């Protein structure tokens, strides 16, 4: 690796080195202030990705440093910064060690940045594992909490299986095509005929299984509700947005490179998308726990994203990326409100915990309501144009069936998204104490709320930007 290549990978290096530094220094000076330092490092990485133009276009044949990759490095760094801000008060009341936590989140952001930039199957594997490993620790970060331990174990076992599938799939594709590098691997796969091509496609199917686990597509979604429920709320925020988003961000160039091979995978993807939308909806409908509901509803959203991926092309990919951002912002906001409502002894999850909270904490409840309505796709919030983009792409790309399923599940989704809102605003409050939040949490929530509203009213600049990022 030359010096120029190191410069090109500077944002990720800042994240990784910063995380290491915080970890080392934190051993000598334990303090929760390290979380703020982590926020600073993440912001520096984001600025660096935004303003330092990389010297080479590709690093070591593994990672791209193009505008697309840079954009996602910025997004995941900001996400890391936001979830650290959300964790500040949470870490204090739950007595979590600041420097370890901070450095783990930075490592996760680094891994997501690498994954979204991957141009080779090895790069993909490394990026994915980099942040999955971090999540094994983060999910079970509250050691005394039995739910946290259960969630961590579940994620570990499922994740390990998925890793096995991924590694095996990659090796099969390598065997069939003779290359790890992305365009070549597929070009090689197309040229080979007969048995080797079949092996390559089997490899692809295995990779899809692994991806299905990671982003919780039905029928590989069973870990999701337990892990969401057991993990600390700020970690769930990162898990629900970044870890799934980074995989989709990596899949976009992957599928673009796939070319005509995509036709072979079409049926599988169609079924996965439809199943995710339907199964997620049916499972989310009876939920009375906000985290579990958001877990199942995220399965539905993954189905929408997969629809965008299936359509592909400029229109489909732009719709996918816009949906991804809209989903991430709203999900971050929802979990942000959850963590700001949490107290020393309890974290509100059951709907009954939220009864009448809308008038006790009007601002945060409004943010939660806006996030849920945006996830449901109600205009004028950003979720509407996101859904609109996916549906029109699906209709245009010749998938009216998926569009129809999407519309129906969107209608059904209103039931489970409105339930918490009804509880918040339309039920009598029990006499209970205030749930005070922290200033840092309010900053994040204000940003999310503003983004949901502003992008909902005027999405044109972001759409243009996303359009210009795509090849």
């Amino acid at each position: 690796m030359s010096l120029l290549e190191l410069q090109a990978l500077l944002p990720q290096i800042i994240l990784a080195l910063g995380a290491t530094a915080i970890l080392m220094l934190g051993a000598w000076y334990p303090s929760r202030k390290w979380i703020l330092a982590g926020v600073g490092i993440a912001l520096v990485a984001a600025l660096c990705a935004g303003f330092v133009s990389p010297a080479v276009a590709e690093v070591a044949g593994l990672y791209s440093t193009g505008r697309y990759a840079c954009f996602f490095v910025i997004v995941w760094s900001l996400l890391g910064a936001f979830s650290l801000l959300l964790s500040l008060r949470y870490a204090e009341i739950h007595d979590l060690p600041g420097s370890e936590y901070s450095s783990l989140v930075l490592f996760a952001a680094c891994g997501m940045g690498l994954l979204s930039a991957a141009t080779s199957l090895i790069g993909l594997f490394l990026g994915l594992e980099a942040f999955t490993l971090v999540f094994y620790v983060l999910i079970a970060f509250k050691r005394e909490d039995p739910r946290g331990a259960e969630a961590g174990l579940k994620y570990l076992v499922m994740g390990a299986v998925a890793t096995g599938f991924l590694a095996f799939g990659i090796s099969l594709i390598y065997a069939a095509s003779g290359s790890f590098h992305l365009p070549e691997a597929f070009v090689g796969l197309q040229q080979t005929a007969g048995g080797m091509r079949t092996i390559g496609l089997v490899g692809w199917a295995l990779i899809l299984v692994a991806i299905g686990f990671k982003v919780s597509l039905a029928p590989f979604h069973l870990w999701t509700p337990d892990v969401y429920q057991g993990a600390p709320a700020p970690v769930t925020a990162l898990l629900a947005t970044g870890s799934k988003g980074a995989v989709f961000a990596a899949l976009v160039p992957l599928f673009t490179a796939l070319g005509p091979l995509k036709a072979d995978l079409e049926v599988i993807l169609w079924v996965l998308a439809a199943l995710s939308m339907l199964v997620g909806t049916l499972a989310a409908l009876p939920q009375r726990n906000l985290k579990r509901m958001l877990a199942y509803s995220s399965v539905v959203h993954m189905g929408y994203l997969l629809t965008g991926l299936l359509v592909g092309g400029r229109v489909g990919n732009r719709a996918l990326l816009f949906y991804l951002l809209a989903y991430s912002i709203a999900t971050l906001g929802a979990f942000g409100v959850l963590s700001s409502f949490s107290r020393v002894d309890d974290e509100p999850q059951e709907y009954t915990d939220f009864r009448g909270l809308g008038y006790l904490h009007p601002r945060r409840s409004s943010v939660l309501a806006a996030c849920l309505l945006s996830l449901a796709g109600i205009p004028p919030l950003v979720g509407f144009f996101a859904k609109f983009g996916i549906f029109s792409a699906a209709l245009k790309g010749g998938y009216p069936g998926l569009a129809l399923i999407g519309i129906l599940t969107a209608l059904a989704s209103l039931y489970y998204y409105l339930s918490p809102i009804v509880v918040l605003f339309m039920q009598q409050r029990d006499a209970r104490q205030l749930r005070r939040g922290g200033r840092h949490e309010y900053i994040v929530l204000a940003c999310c709320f503003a983004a949901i509203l502003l992008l909902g009213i005027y999405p044109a600049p972001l759409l243009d930007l996303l359009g210009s990022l795509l090849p």
Partner: protein
Amino acid sequence: MTFVSLTELPILSLILWLPLAGTLLCLLFRHSNFACRWLALLTTGAVLVLAICLFVGLPTAPGWLIREDYAWIPTFGIRYSLALDGISLLLVSLTAVLQVAAVLISWKQKEHPALFYALVLLLETGIIGVFLATDLILFYLFWELMLIPMLFLIGVWGHGNRVYAALKFFFFTLAGSLCMLLAIITLYLIHGEQSGIYSFALESLMQTQLSPGIEMLLYGGFLLAFVVKVPLFPFHTWLPDAHTEAPAAGSVDLAGLLLKTGIYGLIRFAFPLFPHAAQQSLPLLAVLALIGIFYAAWIAYVQTDVKRVVAYSSVAHMGFVILGLAAWNQLAWEGALLLMVNHGVTTGGLFILIAMLQDRTGSRDLRALGGMWKTLPFFSAFFLLFCLASLGLPGLSNFAGEILVLLGAFGRWPVFAALAAAGVIFSAAYMLRVVQGVLWGPLGQLCKIGDKDCLHEDLDRREWLLLIPLALLVVWLGIYPTTILEPLRGPISLLLQGGGLP
């Protein structure tokens, strides 16, 4: 204000966004009940002044009177385009009048007043937006924007079974809307493939060549969204619940305005975009409208809740409006639109009066009420007036609309029109039953002679201020409906001829 100075300002945007500004201010001053209600009144008042200026200042010409058009989301071909013709002008004015009434009737709002007024104002933006938008996505946006405030108005401030009613309203309307969204996107894609220009503008989409099957399918999507909102039998089941459980302002807005958005959507979007399919659907619409008239009257007759009677009477009146539209001629359409406005004023007035009644007696039950004429003479006089107007007494507002609808319908469906005329008698039956139950007879169970609680205050100044203009409007529209028929004539003939746009 002259016409020239009106068109120089972006007056449509002003009238559209003023209520939203009021919403934000209300939320800003949420700790002061006083500030919020005056803000709400000032905002709705300002919108009313603007609407009256437009009504007086604009010429009565067919075609668009004012337009505004800016790029908004070029990636999808969505534009921010507003336009105003005679029909939308009338409906915007109706909105402005009824919103002032809605604010005044909720003057003593005690529970979360800031949020309440903020939502009423937000609702006004949504409704005005629906009446002004000519870009289909912009229209859809406002169409959905009406839902959220209404959901909260019913769900938070409603009576009894409010959450159920709010969710039922929400799901019914949203199910229809999503069908429309699917149809809108499909139409947009078909048009884009044909012309190479991807646009959601109504005028461009009207040029789309559609095969009969596709046209019927897309029309079905639009129709579903609109007839649920109207509501046409058998999609009306959300309405009695929503109207009954909603707070006074919510009922006024629902009956007076939200139902009209459905009719407006039919004549502005569904019919012009799919003229052939629309023609084929007319008999079906007429039959459903006729069933609605009788069915609603029948159900209304056995209700014991006054609000529910009025709610079902709305279904019957909307049946008349749809029948008029299905007759597809100038006379019937004029009647239908006139009836629509009249219905907004009379039903709005009735809901206001029922709210006053409930304030005083704590009940809306016909079995418990009675004898109000003795204790509340002024209130009772207004109640009688609005009830008579609602049942279509000649000389009061609804009569003119109904007679025009029937005359127009005779030209096309003589049998249907004859049957519908009998429906007028039914409406007299249930409305007179309300009058009898509330005003006449012995004092109700709630009220014994000599009982201290029975000495209810008659109308106060605010209520006089609220009722007199509405009553004058009812009489005026009954005697001289030309005031609003004049600006309607041009746009209606354009819509009927071209199947199209001004």
